[in-house]
Every structure is written in structure tokens, then in C-alpha cells.
């Protein structure tokens, strides 16, 4: 332990602690900007500068470890002046039209300026305007808002291992862009959106589709339905001011009804359907010597990653569409038919924790009739939060409302799709009961749960020992992909989710997501699971009925047409 003094308070802190952490642990607030929990310390922005008594220059609290007898001043006039000047300089090179900005009132730079009491900027604005990169369906980059904090570079490089965004040039000419200043769509970007979720300002955001949804909701000719992904019910509350890990399923349904959707359905339903189709696909591959290990295909970032970087592994991917796309395909076929709605007038919206889902929905092959996209518009959790605020809904006062049918009765197996390892666990619940022909003693496959980067489990299926693996983040996924490419035959089934923690940590989730918050959302996810009447996808009575009435059998002709897809090498 080390004795230090911060602003006349004597403290004893652990050796090696930074000034920032020591202060935080003792309720002393030092403002930060480039600092982000779970990411590397960059000390790029210098906003957390503090004074160490007896030292010449100011130091950054985020990077400076304490030493015995250190005396720190976090709010001396010298410190306050430096911080204010630094922030004014940032603002002078920033598109500061705050009221016309996606991050207005939710912007770390704006909050900082307010905290520091910047009422006017002594420096003239010298921003040289650059064009937007809005050339893809998922993510928009606005260099005019970028403050070069380096967080996006860090997640892209160190969490996802892609390093598409980098710092180019130097000094005041430094920019954060892909190589040659190209568009994200020209690069092997998976549109995971982790960059957008750590951006402190509006330099990287999801492509906003809320106006489009308001428009169709107001159009009397349109029948507008919505599906909500498993991970949104454990994060939307947080977006609207509740504690991380709040479960708001039924209030969320009520809010969507108030917004004017004609049907509010659950993507969990098609997650159950995915498990049936993917489960049977796995069984078929095991029995008939198909390509193994089979790899999950729910995550559009992961699909892009394989298509771009490991096209030789395309046959390992399950041919199942993602739950979002299965829902869209059923909506535009089965639902349109049973409800007697012209597909021309049926508009399908999804609420996803994800930015890549916007890209997935726009993929050319995601259309059952070849004319209309199966999913018309995708909104992130953040965008739904925005619509709820725009509508002036008092979220916490809403009456609990259940999902509509036929896509409303779901299982715990589907609910856990949102957490890393969830798809694997849901599949194992079904596959082992089908293959072993007896009920599982224990439903919880704890080996595949939790935040560890790569998880493995072993189990017995029809008398054979089978090994499975689960990875989240593309850095970890790459390790598994390399193993499989190198001829690894041990695994039968691999689940990959692009985002840390799985979809609950998706690129479209509330800002300021940290590992601690991810853990809370994961905890909530398993709480949803244990609270469900059915916890195995094959026990979902509406899924059984769908097969009886319409699909006939798993992997059947209709399934192949509606629920399965193919992939392309984009290397």
C-alpha cells in the first residue's frame, strides 16, 4: 500500500494504482475524455491533467501511477486553466452545432465543456469540413465531429483485431480513417459498430432510420409490424435511465404499441425456430458426415468476417438464416398470407442491439419474393430509445403488455441468444434431447456461459463424446477460425458472436457499455430464461404448430426456401 494525498485528503491506496483510479475509489472526480474502462490507457486528450506538488509539468491522471508521499491537486487554478484550454481547443476544431447533433445531451465532449464551465470559446473555430461517409446501411462516419480520442481505433484493433480504423498523418493533421481515407464499405469492415458504441461524440453513429419508421407508422395503407431481439429487453431500460440489467420486456411491448405498430412480435420466436433448423442441421452433419465443425450463422458481423477473410470456411457455416431474417421471411410469406396482407403494404421493422443487422437486412438474397426485402427497417436499441423519448412516453408508467401472437410465445432457450454461449446452450438443450432420446437432467450448460473469450465444453451425444467451442469478439473468433483452417477436427459445433459478451454488448446498445454492465445484462438474460414456462426450443407449442400448419418438417423444402441461405466469398 502507498500513502498519497489528493486535495488535502490523505489516502492509502494499492501500489501501482493510477491517480485516476485512486481518486475514483475515494469519490474524487477527475474529468476524462479519451479514457474508457476496459480499453487501453491512451492519455491522448490530456483532459484528466492534474498537478503533482513539486513536479514541473502537469501529468495525466489516467496514466500516472501513484508513489509513496505523492501529493496531487486535481483542481488547482493551473489544472483548471489547462483543462479548459484543452477543451476549448478541441471545440475549436469540432463541428459544434450541438443542437443539430445525434449526441445532443448525450455527448461526452458537451458534458465536459459544461462541467468545466466553458461559456464561450476564446478560440476561433478552424474546422475544415470533410464529407460524411454514409456509404453503407449500418454506420455513418462524420469526421467533422471526431476529436481523435482513439477509442474506435482501440476497439477495432485490439477487441476485434481488424484495425480498419487507424490514425493517419500526424500532429494537427492527424485523422482517424480507414487506409487512404476510403469508405468503410470499401474495407473489410464487418459493421459491428463497436466503434460507434465507444465514440464519445457523434463522429461514428448507426445510420439513423427512425424517420423512415415514423413515416410508415403514419401511413394508413401500411401494416407495420415489429420484432424485438432477445438482447434488447435487458438493455432498453438502461437506455431510458434504469439500472443496467433491468428487464423491461412487457413495458417495451407497451411502448411499441403506443408508437403505433400493428403487431409487436418477439424475435425469440424465430430464435426457437433457428434452434430447430440449426439443431437438425447439426444432427444431419454429424450423422451423414457433413462439414464439421458447424459454425453458427446468427451474427452478421461474423458472417462478413468469414466471407471476407476465411472464405475457405464458408461450408462450415450453418446455412440457417439469423432469427431476424427468419422472422422477416415468415412475415413476408406465412404472416402476409394468413393475415391476407399484400406484401407491398407490409412493413417489417426490427429492433436490434446491433448495427450490422442493418447491413444484413439489406443483403440482396434476404428477400423471399425477390422484390421486397424481408426486413424493411432495422433500428438499434438506441434508436428505439430515441423514438420513445420523441413520443414523450413515460416508460416506467406503462402497463405491462405481452407480445402478440403468432410470434409471441417463446422459450428460455431463445432468450439466452443474447448472451455469449447462449445459442450454443439453446442448441445443446435441443440436440441432446433429440439425439439421446431422453430428457436432460440439467438444462444449464454453465461451461459455455460467461465473459471468458473462448469457452469449451464436452458432452455426450448418442454415445459419442462431442466437443464444442464458443467465442466472442472477432479477435477470439480468429483464433478458432485459424484452428479450423489448420485442420482442427475436435470440435463439432462452434458459436461465434462478434461483440464482447454477445448481442447484449452489441454495437447498437446504450452508450457507455462496459464489461461490468455486460455482466449485469448477462445476469438478467439468464433470469429471463429461468422465468420462462418453456426452456427448450423444441417444446415451444407455437413452433410445433408452425411446422404442422406450414413448414411441415425441419430442413424440409419450405424451410430451405424460407429459412436457409448461402454465403459468398468477398475476399
Amino acid at each position, binding site marked *: 500500500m502507498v500513502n498519497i494525498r489528493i486535495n488535502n485528503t490523505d489516502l492509502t491506496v494499492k501500489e501501482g494504482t493510477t491517480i485516476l483510479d485512486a481518486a475514483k475509489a475515494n469519490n474524487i472526480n477527475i474529468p476524462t475524455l479519451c479514457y474508457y474502462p476496459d480499453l487501453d490507457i491512451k492519455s491522448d486528450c490530456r483532459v484528466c491533467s492534474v498537478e503533482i506538488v513539486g513536479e514541473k509539468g502537469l501529468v495525466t491522471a489516467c496514466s500516472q501511477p501513484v508513489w509513496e508521499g505523492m501529493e496531487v491537486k486535481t483542481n488547482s487554478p493551473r489544472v483548471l486553466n489547462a483543462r479548459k484550454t484543452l477543451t476549448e481547443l478541441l471545440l475549436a476544431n469540432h463541428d459544434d452545432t450541438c443542437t443539430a447533433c445525434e449526441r445532443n445531451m448525450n455527448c461526452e465532449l458537451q458534458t465536459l465543456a459544461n462541467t468545466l464551465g466553458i461559456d464561450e470559446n476564446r478560440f476561433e473555430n478552424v474546422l475544415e469540413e470533410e464529407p460524411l461517409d454514409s456509404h453503407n446501411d449500418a454506420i455513418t462516419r462524420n469526421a467533422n465531429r471526431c476529436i481523435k480520442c482513439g477509442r474506435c481505433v482501440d476497439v477495432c*484493433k485490439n477487441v476485434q483485431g*481488424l*484495425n*480498419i*480504423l*487507424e*490514425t*493517419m*498523418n*500526424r*500532429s494537427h493533421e492527424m485523422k482517424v480513417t*480507414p*487506409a*487512404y481515407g476510403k469508405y468503410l464499405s470499401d*474495407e473489410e469492415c464487418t459493421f459491428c459498430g463497436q466503434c460507434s458504441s465507444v465514440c464519445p461524440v457523434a463522429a461514428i453513429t448507426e445510420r439513423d432510420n427512425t424517420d423512415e419508421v415514423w413515416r410508415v407508422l403514419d401511413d394508413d395503407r401500411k401494416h407495420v409490424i415489429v420484432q424485438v431481439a432477445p438482447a434488447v429487453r435487458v438493455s432498453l431500460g438502461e437506455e431510458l435511465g434504469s439500472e443496467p440489467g433491468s428487464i423491461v420486456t412487457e413495458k417495451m411491448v407497451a411502448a411499441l404499441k403506443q408508437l403505433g405498430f400493428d403487431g409487436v412480435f418477439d424475435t425469440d420466436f424465430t430464435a426457437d425456430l433457428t434452434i430447430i433448423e440449426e439443431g437438425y442441421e447439426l444432427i444431419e452433419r454429424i450423422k451423414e458426415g457433413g462439414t464439421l465443425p458447424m459454425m453458427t450463422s446468427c451474427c452478421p458481423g461474423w458472417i462478413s468476417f468469414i466471407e471476407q477473410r476465411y472464405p475457405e470456411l464458408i461450408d462450415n457455416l450453418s446455412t440457417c438464416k439469423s432469427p431476424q431474417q427468419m422472422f422477416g421471411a415468415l412475415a413476408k410469406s406465412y404472416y402476409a398470407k394468413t393475415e391476407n396482407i399484400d406484401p407491398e403494404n407490409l412493413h417489417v421493422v426490427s429492433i436490434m442491439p446491433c448495427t450490422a443487422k442493418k447491413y444484413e437486412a439489406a443483403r440482396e438474397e434476404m428477400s423471399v419474393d425477390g422484390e421486397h426485402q424481408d426486413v424493411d427497417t432495422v433500428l438499434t436499441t438506441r434508436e428505439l430509445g430515441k423514438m420513445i423519448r420523441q413520443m414523450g412516453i413515460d416508460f416506467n408508467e406503462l402497463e405491462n403488455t405481452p407480445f402478440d401472437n403468432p410470434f409471441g410465445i417463446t422459450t428460455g432457450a431463445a432468450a439466452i441468444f443474447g448472451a455469449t454461449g447462449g445459442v450454443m446452450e439453446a442448441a445443446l438443450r435441443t440436440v441432446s434431447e433429440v439425439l439421446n432420446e431422453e430428457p436432460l437432467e440439467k438444462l444449464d450448460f454453465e461451461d459455455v456461459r460467461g465473459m471468458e473469450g473462448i469457452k469449451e465444453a464436452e458432452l455426450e451425444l448418442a454415445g459419442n463424446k462431442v466437443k464444442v467451442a464458443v467465442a466472442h469478439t472477432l479477435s477470439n473468433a480468429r483464433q478458432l477460425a485459424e484452428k479450423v483452417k489448420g485442420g482442427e477436427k475436435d470440435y463439432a459445433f462452434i458459436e461465434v458472436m462478434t461483440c464482447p459478451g454477445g448481442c447484449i454488448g452489441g454495437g447498437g446498445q446504450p452508450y457507455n457499455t462496459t464489461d461490468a454492465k455486460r455482466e449485469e445484462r448477462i445476469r438478467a438474460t439468464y433470469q429471463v430464461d429461468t422465468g420462462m414456462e418453456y426452456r427448450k426450443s423444441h417444446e415451444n407449442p407455437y413452433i410445433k404448430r408452425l411446422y404442422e400448419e406450414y413448414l411441415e418438417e425441419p430442413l424440409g423444402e419450405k424451410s430451405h426456401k424460407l429459412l436457409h441461405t448461402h454465403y459468398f466469398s468477398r475476399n
Partner: protein
Amino acid sequence: MLEDLLEKYPQQEDQLIEILLDYQSQKQHRYISEEEIARIAAHLGVSESKVYSVVTFYTFFSTEPRGQHIIQVCKDVPCYINGERTMRSVLEKLLGIRVGETTRDKRFTLEQTSCLGHCDGAPAMRIDDKTFTNLDENKIKAIISEYRGAK
């Protein structure tokens, strides 16, 4: 040529600058093209953005073909204060090109650089491997005409 050169280097990220320096010094017009950046990135197992980041950070490297002589004007603070702008406009007028351009006869490329380590002799510039300090209009004119004469 790049392939032969890459074979000499281990496939490690920390070899990047060595490879870039070695290759650019041998290459006609002393620059590294987009295709070459992609090839080097693939060799080292890093992203193109990473290589491009390094190439654009160091003013020593260029992604554009350059002329026979590379004139680099220091733009850092001491030079900036001591007449960097005059130095630059004299050169631009003399050569008939702007910063970042190459003369039509391919003799000269005019660029800016970060600190040359001659702050005591600001403003300073470098032509190829040679540094010139305490520059003014007359001095610059004399230096350029010397280079022009020495064909």
C-alpha cells in the same frame, strides 16, 4: 522487386519501418504505392490501415511518385515562427509548384516535414539527405540554382 525484398525480412510487425525504408530507397520515384502497401501488410499480417498509418506519419515516406530531388520544408513551431511561410512561398514561386507537387520536368518535389532537429538554425529545409539552415529568400534562390545547374 518487392517480393525479393520481403523474403529477406521476418514476418514480424516490428520489421515494418525497415521494410518501408529499404524498399522506398530502391524504388524509382521513391514512393510506396497502394498495391505495395497491401502486399507489405499481407506479408506482416497487419492491416493496410496500419501500414498506411505509418507511411503517413513519417514525412520521409510518400504514397505519391516524387521527382529527382525531394525538398522538405520544416513546418514545426520554431521554423514556423522564423519565416516558414516565406520560405515556402519563395520555393513555390521559384519552382512553379505547390507543396505536395512535382515539377513537370520531374526534377523537384516540394514537401513539408516535421522537425529536422535544427531549431537553432530555423527556418530549415532538407534537400534529399542534406539540410540547409538560417534560410532567407536569397539563400534559397542560390541553393536551387545550384541544384538546377548540377544536372
